[in-house]
């Protein structure tokens, strides 16, 4: 650890010092952030489920771009392949299978109380955003400056994630494979057509 770090309660109040970013980087970070936010708003206001799902794919792609800018290349690739690719395609399959492409005649939005509750919650969460914008991240547990970049250059984009996953979190990794198996079997059992014979 860096010897300049203070020990004691004050250390939690020190924030991580961020390096100065070039304008190119900052511009694209804000660009993809605005795209993600605008797509999310478009997603939540669409009436048609297909349009909503496609806007959500847009959100996921811009989040993948942000992951690349945050030095998480492997996660960005997984985001595009698994999330935007596989999971959203399953959603679109189900929407088309159930023929939900057109908006319902029934009112999709909830009544007055649902809107009021959502509005109140939005206010509370916006206050939380204002707090987060001044986030003071404790420096005590932070890695020394440049450690992440060094590890990335040394082990590669996949190795950085794979090493802690297959060493410290091996049990969780194996449990996830069991979870996926259970989910597959469960989905087949729940989704199959039941006959009267059994």
């Amino acid at each position, binding site marked *: 650890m860096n010897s300049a770090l203070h020990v004691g309660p004050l250390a939690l109040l020190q924030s991580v010092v961020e390096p100065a970013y070039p304008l190119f980087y900052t511009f694209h970070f804000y660009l993809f952030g605005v795209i993600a936010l605008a797509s999310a*708003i478009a997603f939540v206001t669409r009436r048609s489920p297909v349009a909503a799902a496609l806007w959500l794919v847009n959100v996921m792609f811009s989040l993948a771009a942000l992951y690349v800018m*945050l030095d998480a290349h492997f996660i960005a690739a997984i985001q595009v392949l698994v999330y935007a690719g596989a999971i959203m395609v399953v959603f679109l399959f189900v929407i088309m299978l*159930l023929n939900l492409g057109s908006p319902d005649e029934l009112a999709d939005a909830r009544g007055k109380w649902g809107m009021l509750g959502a509005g109140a919650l939005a206010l509370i969460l916006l206050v939380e955003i204002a707090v987060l914008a001044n986030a003071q991240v404790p420096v005590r547990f932070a890695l020394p400056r440049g450690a992440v970049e060094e590890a990335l250059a040394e082990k590669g984009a996949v190795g950085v994630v794979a090493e802690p996953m297959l060493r410290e979190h091996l049990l969780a990794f194996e449990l996830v494979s069991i979870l996926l198996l259970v989910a597959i079997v469960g989905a087949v059992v729940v989704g199959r057509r039941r006959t009267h014979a059994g």
Partner: protein
Amino acid sequence: MLAEALALSAALFTIGVIGVLTRRNAIIIFLCVELMLNAVNLTFVALSRYYGATGQVFVFFVISVAAAEAAVGLAIIIAIFRHKQTVNLQNINLLRG
């Protein structure tokens, strides 16, 4: 960029929560949950830049759990649709008594 990423993630999570609270289409609500998971993933990735790659391992697990959740949840939605011919949550009130 850390504060901006955290603020964006909070905003995306807020939008997801608002969607869950204001919509009645079960599939849209499901998609809103996925949006909330994505917002949390952004927080993990942004903080993993300063606290090591364990955050990215958690993102990997979150994506796996989201895939499992999507498979089972969509199977349940298909089963409900087969039974009720609708995915509007207003008409799905078997447990309301």
